[in-house]
């Protein structure tokens, strides 16, 4: 495992291009585009103000930089550095900006969610979509980029509009049976839309592309409901994490629950491997760079005890957004594993075997898990806890790597490269790239790990 040198970064804005060739990062008002392999700066763009959001277009040709404070969006072309585009939302303000899947339209949401403006880079045409709903996840595109679903609120009722992205034509418009719609998400196959209600009510609705209600599911009443939702990449399962600390898996045939995964603080099954990070005096220097990656420092050790209790957090229940329930959910790219985090056991990541529908492993870190992301190519989970270590889990085992460099590199976020060979580790002010070994070497390393643990 190798690490690149550390580069400056602000606002955790660092993104790989969708084609995997470039890496865009922001330093204050500057946008830096680097080559992923050489890390040499290819382009440097200067924006008008501190950049708050960047997004690559789907064809990796353009990057939009949003400066919400000034209601500005600047678009840069990678092919034509001199090309520029500036969108000013004026007094309407700007709270969100995103690319349409074709990479030629930008959707800007004005303040107070008054409307969404669709700016085209090809024509002068500007489209407006009224009544967008102010919610967590109000816009979602199908994976093929054909359709967009938009949550709307009109006359105190929730609606969903489905647009054809190619010409922004409204395809379907239907009301949803929700009190206060919170999120919508397309299934990866683009045929089913999951719609879930506010956390005050456990309700998830499934709509077909043509607006038919396929199914509605509610696990319980009178309690805080859904906190997170994730589709499996195969569109076969819908995982619903809720405030009761459980993940419920719905199937795509009957849309009924197959199983539910509880996240208790004690793990009674002795067969479950629990990797517990152990405190050890930090070892610095080149040893971390060399192979095999040093893992004993924070060596996640499997527990041989029959009962294993995890560190729990007592949630403050009289405040909004209590730290309970399943806040993070992610399926592995092959749909074989599901990683979850229970917010009142913030140090632990549960990994579930979806084939056998049972718990597979539990990783308990020393500090709360900030983010985890699956390798896009193989079942490998990268975890960061805001410390200077990167944790990798695979079915063969678990390891942790100290990020080298002067001082502590507190990894707050991470994102995998498309190929799964590298990932960007982001801290508050810096970022670096972490290059993993080629698959064969990693395989042996993992096997070694498996043997050791």
């Amino acid at each position, binding site marked *: 495992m190798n690490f690149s040198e550390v580069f400056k970064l602000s606002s955790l804005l660092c993104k790989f291009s969708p084609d995997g060739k470039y890496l865009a990062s922001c330093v204050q008002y500057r946008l830096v585009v680097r080559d992923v392999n050489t890390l040499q700066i290819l382009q440097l763009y200067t924006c008008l103000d501190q950049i708050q959001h960047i997004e690559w277009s*789907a*064809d990796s040709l353009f990057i939009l930089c949003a400066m919400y404070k000034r209601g500005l969006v600047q678009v840069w*072309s990678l092919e034509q550095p*001199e*090309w*520029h*585009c*500036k*969108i*000013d*939302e*004026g*007094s*309407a303000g700007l709270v969100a900006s995103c690319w349409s899947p*074709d*990479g*030629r339209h930008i959707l800007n949401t*004005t303040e*107070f*969610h*008054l*409307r969404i403006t669709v*700016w*085209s*880079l*090809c*024509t*002068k*045409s*500007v489209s407006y979509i*009224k009544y967008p709903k102010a919610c967590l996840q109000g816009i979602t595109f199908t994976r093929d980029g*054909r*359709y967009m679903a938009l949550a709307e*609120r009109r*006359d*105190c009722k929730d609606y969903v509009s489905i647009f*054809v992205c190619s*010409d922004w*034509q409204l*395809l379907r418009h239907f009301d949803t049976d929700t*009190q*206060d719609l919170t999120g919508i998400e397309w299934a990866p*196959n*683009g*045929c089913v839309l999951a719609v879930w209600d506010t956390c*005050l009510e456990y309700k998830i609705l499934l709509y*077909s*592309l*043509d607006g038919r209600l396929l199914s509605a599911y509610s696990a319980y009443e*009178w309690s805080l409901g859904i906190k997170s939702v994730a589709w499996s990449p195969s569109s076969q399962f819908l995982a619903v994490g809720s405030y009761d600390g459980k993940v419920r898996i719905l199937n795509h*045939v009957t849309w009924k629950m197959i199983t539910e995964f509880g996240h208790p603080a004690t793990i009674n099954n002795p067969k479950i491997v629990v990797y517990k990070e152990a405190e050890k005096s930090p070892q610095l220097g080149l040893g971390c760079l060399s192979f095999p990656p040093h893992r004993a420092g924070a060596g996640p050790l499997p527990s041989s005890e029959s009962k294993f209790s995890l560190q729990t957090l007592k949630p403050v229940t009289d405040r909004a957004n209590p730290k309970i329930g399943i806040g993070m959910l992610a399926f592995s790219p092959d749909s074989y594993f599901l990683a979850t985090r229970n917010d009142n056991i913030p140090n632990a990541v549960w990994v579930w075997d979806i084939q056998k529908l049972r718990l597979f492993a539990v990783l308990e870190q020393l500090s709360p898990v900030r983010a985890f992301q699956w390798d896009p190519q193989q079942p490998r989970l990268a975890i960061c806890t805001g410390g200077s270590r990167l944790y990798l889990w695979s079915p063969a085992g678990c390891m942790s790597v100290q990020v080298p460099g002067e001082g502590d590199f507190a990894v707050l976020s991470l994102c995998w490269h498309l190929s799964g060979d590298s990932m960007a580790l982001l801290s508050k002010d810096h970022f670096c790239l972490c290059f993993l070994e080629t698959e064969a070497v990693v395989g042996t390393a993992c096997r070694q790990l498996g043997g050791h643990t």
Partner: protein
Amino acid sequence: MGDWMTVTDPGLSSESKTISQYTSETKMSPSSLYSQQVLCSSIPLSKNVHSFFSAFCTEDNIEQSISYLDQELTTFGFPSLYEESKGKETKRELNIVAVLNCMNELLVLQRKNLLAQENVETQNLKLGSDMDHLQSCYSKLKEQLETSRREMIGLQERDRQLQCKNRNLHQLLKNEKDEVQKLQNIIASRATQYNHDMKRKEREYNKLKERLHQLVMNKKDKKIAMDILNYVGRADGKRGSWRTGKTEARNEDEMYKILLNDYEYRQKQILMENAELKKVLQQMKKEMISLLSPQKKKPRERVDDSTGTVISDVEEDAGELSRESMWDLSCETVREQLTNSIRKQWRILKSHVEKLDNQVSKVHLEGFNDEDVISRQDHEQETEKLELEIQQCKEMIKTQQQLLQQQLATACDDDTTSLLRDCYLLEEKERLKEEWSLFKEQKKNFERERRSFTEAAIRLGLERKAFEEERASWLKQQFLNMTTFDHQNSENVKLFSAFSGSSDRDNLIVHSRQPQKKPYSVSNGSPVCMSKLTKSLPASPSTSDFCQTRSCISEHSSINVLNITAEEIKPNQVGGECTSQKWSVASRPGSQSFGKHL
């Protein structure tokens, strides 16, 4: 006893009264005593009777007492004591035979009575003990009753308390339920209120938004604009198309196409899955049929009453389905038939399995009664026994091993004790041989020494002879020199000359030693020790010679020295013999005395 006495008292008194009529002279009625004796004869009473009888009949009242007794006996049905008299005047004679008979009978009766009494007494005792037992039982039972009553009361109390508690809990539950209901109602009302408020607020918010929208959007905000260098081409390279009804229809079509594709894909998947499942089902069916067919006859007999028709159906279905499976169709009728047949077969299988289970359980139940099946207790006992045996065997093995090891340590075997003994014997023999050889060597040494001694002695003898001769010559010379000598002196000289003569003979002996050995010992008539000495010391003649010389000439110093050495040898050799003899002798009286003592 007392009770009895009191009970019989009135009778006694009445009897005594009647008796007093007959016998005016007797102060105490014997009959009453008799009855007393019958009723409650005991040893002290019988003594009383004796003492009384001694007082009953005196010299004076023999006649009266006899008549009294006669009367008494006749009243009790005994034959009269008197002989049958012909005349009334004549005095009746006492019939001794009758008296004796009566006596005998009375005695027999007495004995019988005693026996009966004993029986009665034992019975009485028995009854008394029974009574005691029953009384104790009764008291115990009473206590039990009391305790159980108390327990019952306690339980009742507890029951009451529990009921009370239960009632309270029920009340609490009801309250809680009410509370829950209330809270739910509150939640619901709050929710509706919240929703209402939310709606109201939202409406307000929407109004505000609308106004804002109008204000912001309609003001022709110059700022809201896109500043772009040049428009770029579409990603697909096509030109943007106008929105028309056509595009709308096309979009719809495409959407449906996508949906259709998805559904087709899913249907394909489902079909594949279905096919797989069908295959499995068919296989299961076949296996079930094959499994059930050999037992068909049996179940038919057994299940005839309940599922007789089903089996015949199954047979038909088996044929049908094999045909139908060829079609691999999922039309409704086939499905129904398939499921029906499967269900039927499943039922049969189930009943069969249940029957088997029943049989198994029956066998189990019977097994406990059956003798050929070992009961658990027996089994445990057997195992215990076997374990014990194993333990013992183990111990045996252990001890054997220990023994073996011990024997190995001494390089010997248990089985070859005889060999061992032989070994010992051999060893001893060898030891003895060695000792023997040592002994022999010692003997040789001794002999050598003795020889040297004898030689030395011979030499000495020769020297002495020479010396004697010298002295003799010297004496002769002196004698010759001294011309005037006494008679005494002459005698002395004679003696000396005699001595010198013997010494001369000695010299001869030295020359021919062996022949003269025996004559010497015999002539000497020496004691056992001496003979021994001669045996052990073949060169004894010289020593004996010395002895003699010593006895003869004791005043000579040089001879004395030689004598001492000879004597030293003697006790060494002889002492051992003597002591051994003494030992044997000493041991004998001891054993004898022991025998005597014993």
